[in-house]
């Protein structure tokens, strides 16, 4: 460890119960520019794990949670919601399964929201580039309800990276797309995340696609009582 640069994200001994189901993450390291996929069968707790890492769910057990230089674990233990919210706003970007866009904001306003919240200038080259790459320019003034699911997920992705967070968390960002589209979006995401030197965790049940794109995996090992996520 001493010879390597400290990882961007370091988590140890994270666990929670969902009903009788025990979800466990013994260890996770993520460096800048690194993407990992969380894979496993439906219902094994992938999304729950992502929510734990995304600081919207309080873990029952936690050894260590460090993001950058910051010990986030102490805030989780203390249930310091204000600091956790600030961390989400500054350091994290989320892509939810069906996009999770605010219905009352246009595409452009949705994309600008994270930057407005942080008081950053509304224009960013990275966002403009992502909008171009993903072909969202003609959609900027539409409402989310006018978009297809694929378009919504592309918008949600741009919104998630708009404030250039340290860590991108995406829950099945390609699930609703047909295979060629899914592949294209995933490749674009990888390219943009690496270009911005962010780290990313993608939940996916399509591990063939994940493997094709050359992502390392965090796979659920399912036993009778729960899942344990380990690298493979």
């Amino acid at each position, binding site marked *: 460890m001493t010879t390597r640069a400290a990882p961007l994200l370091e988590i140890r001994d994270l666990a929670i119960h969902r009903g009788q189901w025990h979800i466990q993450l013994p260890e996770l390291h993520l460096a800048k520019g690194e993407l990992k996929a969380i894979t496993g069968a439906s219902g094994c707790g992938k*999304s729950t794990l992502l929510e734990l890492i995304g600081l*919207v769910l309080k873990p029952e057990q936690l050894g260590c949670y460090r993001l950058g230089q910051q010990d986030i674990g102490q805030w989780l233990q203390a249930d310091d919601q204000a600091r956790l*919210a600030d961390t989400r706003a500054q350091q994290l970007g989320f892509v939810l399964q069906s996009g999770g866009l605010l219905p*009352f904001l246009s595409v452009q306003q949705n994309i600008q929201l994270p930057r407005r919240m942080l008081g950053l200038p509304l224009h960013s080259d990275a966002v403009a580039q992502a909008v171009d790459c993903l072909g969202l320019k003609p959609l900027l003034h539409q409402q989310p309800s006018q978009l297809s699911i694929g378009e919504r997920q592309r918008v949600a992705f741009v919104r998630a990276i708009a404030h250039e967070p340290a860590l991108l968390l995406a829950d099945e960002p390609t699930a609703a797309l047909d295979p060629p589209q899914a592949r294209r979006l995933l490749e674009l995401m990888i390219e943009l995340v690496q270009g911005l030197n962010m780290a990313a965790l993608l939940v996916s049940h399509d591990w063939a696609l994940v493997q094709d794109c050359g992502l390392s995996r965090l796979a659920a090992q399912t036993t009778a009582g729960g899942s344990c996520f380990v690298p493979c």
Partner: protein
Amino acid sequence: MSPVNARPGMGLLTDLALRDLWHDRKLSLCIVASLVAVIAPLLLLFGLKYGVVSQLRDALLKDSYTLEVRMLGNGQLSQAWLNELAAQPGAAFVVPLTRSLNTQADLVWDSQRFVANAEMIPSAVGDPLLGTVPPPTQANQVVLSASAAQKLGVQKGSTFKLVVMRQLSGQHERGQLEVEVIGILPPEAFSRPAALVHLDLLLAMEDFRDGFRVPMLGLETGTLRPDTPRQYARARLYAKDLDQVSVLADWLSARQIESSTKLREIESVKAINRVLGLIFAVIAWTAAIGCAASLMGAFLANIERKRRDLALLQLLGFRRSAMGCYIMLQALLLTALAFALGYGLYAVGSWIFNQSLAVSLSDTAFVCRLEPVHLALALGSTLALAALVAALGSWRALQIQPAETLRDV
């Protein structure tokens, strides 16, 4: 990892809250409508309460006739006795009166315009009859009742002759004094032709009729008035409030002086006041509770409906406090709009009341009215109630971890 201030400003929160409301404008309007349905009648009710009940009741209660204790018969009252009467805690105003036959005089402008046998009423500072009109401070100053002023055709500042007749040694004598009109009572204050005069003038008139020499009235005939303490026949007496009327009457009765009061009317006014007060209180409380229930229903339903959006905003890093602000802001915006519309309806309703029912009342009276301070209070308490309900609702909504609502977003 610079510690950027992640708290969204009020500007952003307001912008989002407004866009959200506008996006769901049909539902926003439903909420507003349900609030207007309670606010408008409530405003009208309070308008009526203030207008009819308070205003008319106050008019009755403060009416100088209601508070007057009229002493009957002619007594022999000394100045000391009158001082004792004036010192009674319930007495608001006391001024001595001469014997009733001597409280009349003719008011003459010219041979065409005069008032025969006008009532001469002694007045002084604090006379309830005067209202805002200044009292006469000298014997040659009078305040006329509206009907007297009209018959004479005089205005404030005019002068006319006050004429008193007597028979002395078989001769008719005519005493007269040039007096100045320093004020005219409003018509509703006193209906008969009358002049409010300084006590000195009334006493001079009595002396004149008793055959004494009164140079003030322009005659040097008659004998000098003996230097004995003056005795008064009666007094004009007013109580401080309704309850004191019977106290003063009892005080007089204990001194063998009969009096007449408006006690029976007062009792009926009080009874009506009690009944109306109870009716209004019950209706107002029912309506206020209805308003609270309506606010609660509307906002809790709204929060329930918005739960996904709220969870999303939390996910994006909005703090709970900011979310609370957001929810309260929406509640306040909807309530303010509902209040504005409710006020519009109230304005129409009160205009109809005042147009159709106020004809019989004098210019200053009204059936339905709220002062700006009442409106400010109503708005303030409605907003406070809305904020409270929204705060409770948002507190409940935000206890739930955002993850639990995000799955099906």
